[in-house]
């Protein structure tokens, strides 16, 4: 069968092809967007990239809250009454066509004076005239062309975020000073007694001194602060010998030029700080389109519709919802607070909260939990709690969310630094004592020389360059890690805990098994065609599983919400749905089932099973040799037997775990010495992800939100998990080898220092040489490691 592709969104048009302007569209929504663009001469949109669009969603009434002044105030970053500037996050931004159309918004609405896209962050900054248009109008315009902005409770905060650019400034200053000092110190390297050099060397030296002042006191300030903090908490971290080295370099050089003893070590000093900062900069790999800090606020809406007897329906900010308020929840809207259903057909999708893909039907009077999404029609509910006190959001009041994970973790560099600092100090003292007896005039020279040459630049660079490079390699393989410390922690884990739903099972596909009487071809045809008309998630799943059939038109079709569907074609009559609706005698509470009867005769049932990710059992069998494996599920034990068959027998299977239980389980095992890697996906895992040593959120689509975590893994790479852990372990080995390399350089340097022959030129060669060879070594080694990963 030939497929017709929608000109606008690129989806398969299925059976409903809408032809317009010699092009095919899959739905009226897509056609409308095309019409808007062609009327405004913006069809260039389709030239840049084929089928770049998306189907615009039904959004009637959804953005009514944007007409409230206090909400506009919070969402705009500039507002003087005439001009407003707002930055809107648009998840759909994905190609150059998107940038083009969004930067030409002024052609669609002349009151928009400019719009600028940041592709990496997927946002657009819109400047518009607030007298003639409004934020609401801009948002509606964006939604109508398929670029619906995502506005959540997270955006509801005042003021702009300050971007921290300190490191770039510091790096700039250090690099600038390093370059200039190198030029100025170069003539003296050769120690030729030329007349002009003798005359000008004092000027050169003082200029170098001036250049190194901002390097020491501004660019290198962090090392002094960190060393001071370390000493105060009785820790010899890597910054202690660095700070010692910097200060000795600066003081000795200053004394040398004041008393005309030599040219000083300003070149080494500025070079050292520059290389160290370069390492820090390289280690910072940020994914601007990802966030590792999300909590429930990123999922929740800013406002919902409140029904009051005095003023009818009006938008209300969710923080203002009080107990007893009547709320109106539209289709596709999120329930912001715990409440009781008053009326309407509630079909709640809790996939945000539990990762469970099947939606749940609720009757009037039932309790609704915050975080669920209404999926059929409008409902009315009464709030029984405020936002912060709701069942789901309460999880965030746990201490674990305010604790910094990196505290209390001594990294490899700092562990080595402790021994290193003690050794260096003792060498310095012994050498100084020796020279005090032999030649006292050289003693001070030797003491400072040892501290200068032993400054652990190369050691400090090993970890940043190894981890920094590995972060980039992982990123290319769709494993997005928050920072370098996570890789180190990942190498140390001994227990892996998996969530079930959405993590080891795939959200997209379920498998269904039929038992009962065999269906005749005409019944199968009827079944498939009946399911086609239904939007119920189970119908859609079953429809996709069944074989392709011809399309027939049904004589009668009726959907009973929460129960099932009945339909007939000619003389054949079919009922599909719940056990009671169809008239089945037996039904299982644990498993999801769909029952079928034709012509009032019970035929059988489809039982849905979770479909597990590809390579799951292979992955578990590889991992079981090295790690304790646990499945911690919020679901019931319906899948227990099934899982036992697939997974190695050592795997612990624990069901019916509430979000708090998961957190406590991990906490308990950590006190027993377990280093836990938690892999989860939903908001219900958020506590467990925060408590674990490394929390990885698995995501089918990394642009969709995932809870706060240390790393985000693309679901398609799930079966590679063991390789990522293995690579982290190898990274630790690489760092250890580069420590060996840098010790080798230190031994050479110490020879010159201890014998009292350290000339500035030797320091100036040795320091960059050791740093550069470390960078080259770690880069080559991690790239080889990365090649193995693919």
């Amino acid at each position, binding site marked *: 069968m030939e497929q017709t*592709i929608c*000109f606008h969104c690129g989806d398969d048009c299925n059976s409903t092809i809408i032809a317009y*302007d010699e092009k095919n569209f899959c739905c009226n929504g897509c056609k409308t967007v095309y019409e808007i663009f*062609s009327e405004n*001469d913006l*069809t*260039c949109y*389709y*030239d*840049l990239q*084929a*089928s770049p669009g998306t189907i615009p969603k039904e959004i009637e009434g959804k953005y009514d809250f944007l007409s409230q002044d206090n909400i506009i105030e919070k969402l705009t970053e500039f507002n003087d009454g005439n001009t407003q500037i707002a930055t809107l996050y648009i998840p759909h931004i994905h190609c*150059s066509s998107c*940038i*083009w159309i969004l*930067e*030409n918004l002024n052609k669609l609405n002349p009151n928009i004076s400019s719009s*600028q*896209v*940041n*592709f*990496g*962050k997927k946002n657009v900054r819109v400047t518009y005239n607030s007298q003639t248009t409004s934020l609401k109008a801009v948002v509606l315009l964006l939604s109508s062309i398929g670029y619906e902005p995502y506005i959540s409770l997270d955006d509801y905060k005042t003021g702009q975020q300050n*971007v921290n*650019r300190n490191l*770039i*400034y510091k790096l*700039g*200053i250090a690099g*600038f000073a390093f*370059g*200039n000092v190198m*030029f100025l110190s170069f003539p003296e390297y050769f120690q030729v007694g030329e007349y*002009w050099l003798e*005359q*000008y060397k004092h*000027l050169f030296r003082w*200029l170098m001194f001036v250049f190194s002042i901002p390097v020491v006191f501004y660019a290198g300030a962090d090392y002094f602060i960190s060393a001071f903090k370390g000493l105060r908490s009785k820790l010899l971290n890597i910054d202690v010998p660095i700070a010692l080295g910097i200060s000795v370099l600066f003081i000795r050089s200053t004394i040398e030029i004041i008393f005309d003893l030599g040219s000083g070590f300003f070149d080494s000093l500025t070079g050292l700080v520059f290389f160290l900062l370069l390492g820090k900069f390289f280690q910072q790999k940020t994914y601007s389109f990802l966030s590792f800090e999300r909590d429930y606020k990123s999922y929740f809406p800013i406002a919902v519709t409140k029904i009051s007897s005095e003023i009818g329906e009006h938008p209300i900010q969710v923080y203002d919802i009080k107990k007893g308020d009547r709320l109106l929840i539209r289709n596709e809207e999120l329930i912001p607070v715990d409440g009781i259903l008053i009326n309407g057909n509630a079909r709640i999708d809790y996939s945000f909260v539990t990762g469970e893909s099947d939606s749940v039907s609720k009757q009037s009077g039932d309790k609704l939990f915050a975080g669920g999404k209404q999926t059929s029609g409008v409902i009315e509910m009464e709030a029984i709690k405020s936002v912060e006190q709701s069942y789901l959001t309460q999880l965030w009041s746990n201490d674990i969310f305010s604790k910094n994970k990196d505290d209390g973790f001594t990294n490899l560099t700092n562990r080595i630094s402790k021994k290193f600092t003690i050794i260096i100090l003792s060498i310095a003292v012994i050498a100084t004592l020796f020279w005090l007896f032999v030649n006292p005039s050289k003693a001070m020279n030797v003491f400072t020389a040892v501290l200068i040459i032993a400054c652990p630049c190369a050691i400090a660079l090993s970890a940043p360059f190894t981890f920094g490079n590995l972060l980039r390699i992982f990123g290319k393989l769709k494993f997005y890690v928050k920072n370098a410390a996570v890789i180190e922690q990942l190498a140390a884990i001994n227990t892996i805990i998996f969530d079930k739903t959405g993590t080891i099972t795939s959200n997209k596909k379920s498998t269904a098994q039929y038992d009962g009487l065999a269906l005749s071809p005409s019944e199968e045809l009827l079944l498939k065609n009946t399911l086609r008309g239904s939007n119920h998630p189970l119908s859609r799943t079953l429809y996709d599983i069944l074989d392709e059939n011809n399309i027939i038109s049904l004589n009668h079709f009726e959907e009973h919400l929460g129960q099932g569907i009945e339909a007939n074609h000619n003389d054949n009559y079919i009922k599909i749905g719940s056990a009671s609706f169809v008239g089945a005698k037996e039904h299982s509470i644990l498993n999801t089932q769909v029952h079928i009867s034709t012509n009032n005769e019970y035929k059988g049932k489809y039982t849905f099973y979770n479909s597990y990710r590809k390579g799951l059992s292979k992955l578990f069998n590889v991992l079981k040799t090295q790690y304790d494996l646990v499945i911690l599920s919020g679901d019931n034990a319906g899948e227990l037997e099934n899982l036992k068959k697939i997974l190695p027998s050592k795997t612990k299977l624990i069901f019916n775990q509430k979000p708090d239980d998961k957190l406590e389980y991990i906490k308990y095992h950590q006190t027993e010495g377990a280093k836990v890697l938690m892999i989860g996906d939903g908001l219900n895992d958020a506590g467990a992800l925060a408590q674990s040593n490394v929390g990885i959120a698995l995501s089918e689509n990394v642009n969709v939100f995932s809870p706060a975590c240390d790393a985000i893994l693309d679901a398609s790479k799930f079966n590679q998990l063991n390789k990522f852990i293995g690579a982290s372990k190898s990274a630790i080995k690489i760092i250890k080898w580069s420590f060996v390399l840098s010790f080798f350089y230190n031994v050479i340097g110490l020879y010159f220092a201890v014998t009292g022959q350290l000339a500035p030129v030797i320091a100036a060669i040795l320091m960059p040489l050791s740093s550069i060879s470390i960078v080259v070594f770690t880069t080559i080694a991690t790239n080889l490691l990365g090649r193995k990963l693919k």
Partner: protein
Amino acid sequence: MSVIYILLSISIIVAVVFFIAFITAVKNGQFDDDYTPSVRMLFDDELVKEQPKPTIKIKKTN
């Protein structure tokens, strides 16, 4: 020989000017988004091409 003073001060002034330019560029956010501008600069041509002859607006892509 005093020419070296002039040369020295010129070289340092030039260096400082570039340094200030760098700091201003960082402050204005030029390094915040390093992808979009590279795409944006390619658009201008198409806009100019489109405006004078809006009649041929529908072109085929697939």
